[in-house]
């Protein structure tokens, strides 16, 4: 029984990681309707920023997180201004081809700059130690992930649902012309939102590397699971992504534990069922 609870707790933490990893995409894909398969590339960017600061400059782990957020956000805004803004009105296929091309380019760039090897990511001791929490043995890092995930979820839900900024973003996505007519500077708004999505990807990347490692193939390795979170959660819904990520994390862990022979495939089966019966996901917004 204790074993089962430990596995569930681990699953929740893994789900939080998936959530942090995919909220950036939920913002760009879900709210802005831009199919951003280069999401992983932004996450990788945040990962490298954190690892380089930590290993080369000796910056403490906690400080590398905001740094990764800011650096990736700036790169996101620059790339939005330079190229991505031209793609909003293009058909979906163009967006897919463009953004996957961007991910390949980013991956090749990472090989040139950082080399093809795994980057060493060693977390501070207070994060890797095991903690006894109400009879559950769990590591500090997993608790830390859960806390980060909860904070991010609350802040983002508040931002997009209860602030003027969020209302403007939603309005602009639903009807760009009318929004512009009402005096909303849509171009600037989209730059900021895309930058925010990229920054969140960077933060997710920086948090994930301690768990998943980091090398130049990072943009592709986790693309599927991230897309799954957004698809099951329903594009555009932060709360939906949150629920989907926890659900996937726990389901994955439980099935791997209970029926290891098939456990790894269960979540993909769930995805198929979900797409058949709830094509908009848990909480999909209608257009």
């Amino acid at each position, binding site marked *: 029984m204790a074993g089962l609870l430990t596995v569930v707790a681990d699953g929740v933490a893994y789900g939080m990681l998936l959530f942090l990893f995919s909220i950036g995409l939920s913002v760009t894909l879900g709210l802005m309707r831009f199919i951003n398969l280069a999401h992983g590339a932004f996450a990788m960017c945040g990962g490298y920023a954190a690892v380089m600061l930590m290993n080369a400059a000796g910056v403490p782990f906690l400080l590398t997180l905001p740094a990764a957020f800011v650096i990736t956000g700036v790169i996101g805004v620059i790339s939005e201004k330079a190229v991505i803004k031209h793609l909003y009105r293009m058909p979906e296929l163009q967006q897919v081809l463009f953004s996957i091309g961007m991910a390949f380019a980013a991956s090749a760039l990472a090989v040139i700059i950082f080399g093809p090897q795994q980057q060493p990511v*060693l977390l501070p001791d207070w994060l*890797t130690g095991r903690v006894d929490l109400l009879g559950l043995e769990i*590591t500090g890092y997993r608790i830390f992930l859960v806390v980060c995930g909860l904070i991010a979820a609350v802040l983002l839900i508040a931002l997009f649902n209860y602030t003027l900024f969020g209302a403007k973003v939603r309005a602009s996505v639903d009807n760009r012309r009318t929004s512009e007519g009402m005096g909303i500077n849509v171009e600037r708004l989209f730059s900021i939102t895309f930058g925010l999505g990229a920054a969140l990807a960077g933060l997710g990347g920086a948090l994930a590397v301690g*768990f*998943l*490692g980091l090398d130049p*193939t990072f943009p592709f*390795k986790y693309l599927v699971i991230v897309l799954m979170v957004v698809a099951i959660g329903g594009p555009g819904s932060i709360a939906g992504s949150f629920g989907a990520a926890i659900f996937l994390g726990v389901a994955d862990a439980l099935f791997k*534990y209970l029926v290891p022979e098939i456990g790894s495939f269960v979540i993909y089966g769930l995805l198929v069922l979900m797409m058949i019966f709830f094509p908009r996901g848990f909480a999909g917004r209608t257009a």
Partner: protein
Amino acid sequence: MCLPTSLHRFPARAFLVAAFFIAAISNFEIAYAQDRKLTVGVILPLSGAFADQGKHYEDGIKVFQKIHGNKVGNVVVETVVRDDQGPGSGDLARRLTQELIQRNKAQIILGYSFTPNAMASATLLTEAKTPAVIVNAATSIITEKSPYFSRVSFTLPQIASSLGTWAAKSSVKTAYTIVSDYAPGLDAETWFTKTFEAGGGKIVGSVRTPVAAMEYSPFLQRAIEAKPDAIFAFNPGGDVAVAFMKATKERGVTKSGIKLLVTGDVVDDNLLPAMGDSVEDVISALHYQVELDNPANAKFLKGFREMFGANAVPSYRVVQGYDGMALIYQALEKTGGKTDADSIMAAIKGAKLDSPRGPIQIDPQTRDIIENIYIRRGVQKDGKWVNAAFETIEAVKDPAK
């Protein structure tokens, strides 16, 4: 009027031209007699997800040529490097092999990091009568697919069976196996189980995980609950190995008194910095570790560190690339510069080398490698984590043949 002059001048000019020609030809012939060229076609994954591996072998080849020069007798050894992109591209590896043989006139091939790529090229090598030295691909059966194959790496049965034998001898009564679900993983599981059970051990459970699994916690939790004396694990290395090792530390596997046994490629020396203290007390078996104390290794490390910096740590893959070149050089020495396939293969069969990993031999019957397998333990030395060998099993043959 001008005829006499031109008549007069013609022989002179003709003579000059002829002299030039003769000089050029004889020069060429002299050059030919002094320096002949041997092209070694090198096929490695140099882009994509496995670019890191490919670079290690290439580094090994470079280090060897830096230390030993590029000439054997009067033969200049040149390499032409091609990128086969990884394990999913047997067709590409075959095409590159053909190109290297036909267009670049490669007389020996060195490479193949992955089994499918070596397998796909086998019939071509037989047809073209071109010797090929396998730099890594570790599935046992490959060398039987062409009489021109030889191997300088290892086979998984070699390592897994050594570890199984050791475990059974070392008061490990029960074991739980966790291997990645693909051919090498099944090889590892089969041979560990075979020798472990032959030594009186009992397997209390086994699980096969997806090749790219990153979240190992649930699998480990289940393994721990089975309360085995030891967990045996194999996975494809790289980030998966790092994630696995970190998960074992998180679950406190070695702390709870369970021995953790892995094939040595999982705790590759150059991944140790990324694994940190999670390798503490982890027991592994492999054919090379940086710590080996022998003259050949000292020479190799000196050359390696001159090229890649004083703190660089070579992967066992670098040594495999290095030994691949060493085998080719030795074969050329033995043949006295003859580069035809039969002479080279005759020289390769039974070749003995003083490798950085200790003495190695190419089995004259199977053309596979016979080498020492070291049983190592993860310990901290001078602030760094290393695999320290505490037992050597000498001259291990591939048990699957």
